[in-house]
C-alpha cells in the first residue's frame, strides 16, 4: 500500500508542477535570507566579543551560513527537477537522481530541526558567557595602558550608552571595583591614601559610576559621584531617584538583545522546515505519475 497516494489528471499535474517550481524558488530566496542572517549574527557576536571575554561560541552563525548555502543548492536543484518533470524525455534522465535527492532533503530537514533546537539552547551559553565577560570588562575598565585591554573602557562605555544600562546586574557593581587607574590618583593626597588603606585589597573604591551610566532623559544634570550620599547634592534622594542613571544592568540588556535575535532566527527556521516538508511531499507525488506518461 503506497504511503499517502493521490490520483492526478493531466491538468492538475501541470498546475502542481508549476506551483512546486515557484515554491522551490521561494525556498531558494529563504535560503539566501538564512545565509545573510547567519552573517549578520556572526558580525553582531564579533562586535561585542570583548564584553564576552572573546570566548563566545560561533556554532549557531556558522551552521546558519552552511545550511543557508545548502538550502540554496538543494532547492535550486529541486526546482530544476520540477521543471524537467514536465518533459517526459528529460524526466527519464532525472529519475535515478530522485531517490538520493529525497534522502538528502530529509537529512537537510533533520539538520534544520537540530539548528532550531540549538538556537533556543545556545541562549544559555550566551547568558553565562555574558555574565563572566561583563564582570571582567568592569574589572579591566581602568587598564587603558595594558596591551590587549586598552579599548575595554571604550567598548564598555559604548555598550552602556548604546544599550542604556549600567554595570553588570545594576549600577552598584561599579562600587565594588576600582575603575579609576592609579595613574590618575594623587597618592600624596591624604583623602586618597585613607580610602586606599581602608580597603582590604588596597583598592580605591567609591560610590561613583562612569559618565556612560548617565541617563540623558534626566531633568537634572547627571550625578555621577557620591551617589548614595543624599547630603552631597541639593534636593536629591538616591532611594527614589530613578531617572539619573540607567537602572538596568548590562547583562540583562545585552542578553535580551541576543535572545531576541536568536528567537527570531529560530522562528524563521521553523517556517523554513514547514516549507521544505511541503515541497518534498509535493515532489514525492510527482515521480509517481510524470506528466505526459
Amino acid at each position, binding site marked *: 500500500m503506497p504511503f499517502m497516494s493521490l490520483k492526478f489528471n493531466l491538468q492538475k499535474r501541470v498546475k502542481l508542477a508549476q506551483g512546486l517550481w515557484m515554491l522551490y524558488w521561494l525556498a531558494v530566496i529563504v535560503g539566501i535570507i538564512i545565509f545573510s542572517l547567519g552573517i549578520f549574527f556572526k558580525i553582531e557576536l564579533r562586535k561585542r566579543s570583548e564584553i564576552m571575554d572573546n570566548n563566545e561560541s560561533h556554532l549557531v552563525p556558522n551552521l546558519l551560513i552552511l545550511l543557508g548555502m545548502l538550502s540554496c543548492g538543494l532547492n535550486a536543484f529541486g526546482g530544476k527537477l520540477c521543471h524537467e518533470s514536465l518533459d517526459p524525455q528529460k524526466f527519464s534522465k532525472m529519475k535515478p537522481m530522485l531517490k538520493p535527492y529525497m534522502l538528502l532533503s530529509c537529512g537537510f530537514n533533520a539538520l534544520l530541526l537540530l539548528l532550531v533546537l540549538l538556537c533556543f539552547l545556545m541562549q544559555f551559553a550566551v547568558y553565562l558567557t555574558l555574565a563572566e565577560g561583563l564582570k571582567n570588562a568592569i574589572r579591566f575598565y581602568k587598564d587603558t595602558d595594558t596591551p590587549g585591554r586598552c579599548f575595554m573602557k*571604550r567598548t564598555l562605555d559604548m555598550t552602556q550608552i548604546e544599550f542604556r544600562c549600567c554595570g553588570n546586574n545594576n549600577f552598584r557593581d561599579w562600587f565594588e571595583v576600582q575603575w579609576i587607574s592609579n*595613574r590618575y590618583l594623587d597618592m600624596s593626597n591624604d583623602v586618597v591614601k585613607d580610602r586606599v588603606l581602608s580597603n582590604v585589597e588596597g583598592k580605591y573604591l567609591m560610590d561613583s559610576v562612569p559618565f556612560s551610566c548617565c541617563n540623558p532623559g534626566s*531633568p537634572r544634570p547627571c550625578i555621577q559621584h557620591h551617589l548614595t550620599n543624599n547630603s552631597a547634592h*541639593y534636593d536629591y534622594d538616591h532611594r527614589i531617584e530613578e531617572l539619573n542613571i540607567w537602572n538596568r544592568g548590562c547583562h540583562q540588556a545585552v542578553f535580551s538583545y541576543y535572545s531576541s535575535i536568536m528567537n527570531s532566527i529560530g522562528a524563521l527556521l521553523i517556517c523554513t522546515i514547514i516549507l521544505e516538508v511541503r515541497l518534498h511531499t509535493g515532489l514525492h507525488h510527482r515521480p509517481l505519475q510524470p506528466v505526459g506518461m
Partner: protein
Amino acid sequence: MAVLKVKFTKTRRDKLAQILWILNWISVVTGVILFSLGLFLKVELKKREELMAEKDIQYVPNMLIAVGLIACVINFLGGKICYDCVDTTNFLRWKLIMLPYIVCTFFFTLCVLVGALMCYSMHWELEEALNLGLTQAMRFYKDTDMPGRCFLKHTVDMLQIQFQCCGNSGYKDWFQIQWISNRYLDMSKKEVVDRLRSNVEGKFLMDGVPFSCCNINSPRPCIQQQITNNSAHFNYEHQTEDQNLWMKGCREALLEYYTHLLQSIGLTVLITWLFELSVLTGVRYLQTSLENMLRQGDPNSESDGWLLENSLMETARTNLSIIKSLGKGNQIDTADNGDPNIDVPSTSKAHYGPDNVPPKQKTETN
C-alpha cells in the same frame, strides 16, 4: 539648415522607439528615486528641527519631492508614446501632442537642474540656521520643567553623544551659559550665592560641561567639572589635553553631516538630469523623423531626424515673432489702415457728379 541632422531608416526608427520605451521606464524608476531622496532629506531635516532656527530650508526637499513625482508622470507618458511610435497608425494619435510634450519636458529638465543646484546652495542657509538653533538649544538646556522645552536637554545630550561634538563652536560655549537649573542649586550655600552675584546677569556660570561632552576614547575617567583648573585634577593640563572631551563643535559636526548628504543627493540629481536630457534628445529625434516620414508619405522610407529645423538663431527669431504676434492679437492697430473690419469714415466730401445729388437708393425688385 537643420541642427544635428541624422538619417533614419525604418528599422532604425523602430529600434529607437523600443530603446526609448525602455529608457523611459528606467526614468520612471529614477523619478521614484528622486522622490524618495527628497522624502529622506525632509525626514532628516525634520528630525533635528528643534536645533535649527526658523529658516525656510524645507523648500529643497519639497522641490525634490515635486520633481520626482512629475518625472514619474512625464516619463510614464513618454514611455507610452514611444511604445506607440513603432506602429505608424498609433503614432498619428500622438502626433499633435508630441511637440508640446517635448517642450514641457525640456522645461522640466531645467527644473531638475535647478533642484540639483539648490542642493549645493543650501549649505549657507543651513549653517546660519544651525548656528542660531544650537545657541538657543544650549540656552534652554536647563529648562526641563518648561512645556515645549522639556525635551531639549535630551535632544542636545543625544546630539553630542551621537555626533561626538560639544557645544556650538567648541566646549567653551558651555562656560558662558547657565546649564544647571536653579531648582538644583542650593541657594543657602555661600559659594553658590557668591558665584551668582559675581555674574552681571545673575547666572550661575562655571567651567564645567554636561556629561554628553565626554569623549569615550579618553584613557582616563571623564573630567567634566573645573576643566580649566589644572590643580583641581591630578596629572592634568587642560591646554594639552584633547582626548578628555569632544573637541569638535556641534555646528561643524551637523554641517558636515548635512553637507555630505546634500552633496550625494545633488550628484544623484545631476546624473538624473543628464539621463533625462538624453532621453529627451532621443524622443525629439524620433518625433522629427516620424513627422518627416509622414510628410514623405511612405512608412518604409528613410527620413531625416533633427533637433531643430533651422539654425538656433532662426528658430529663436521665429518663436519670438510667434510670441509677439500672440501678444498683438488683442491690440487695436490704429496706425494700420489695412484692417478691413474697421469702419474708417472718409474724410473727403463725397462727389456725386455735376449736379451733386446723391443717387437714389436702388431697391431690387424681383
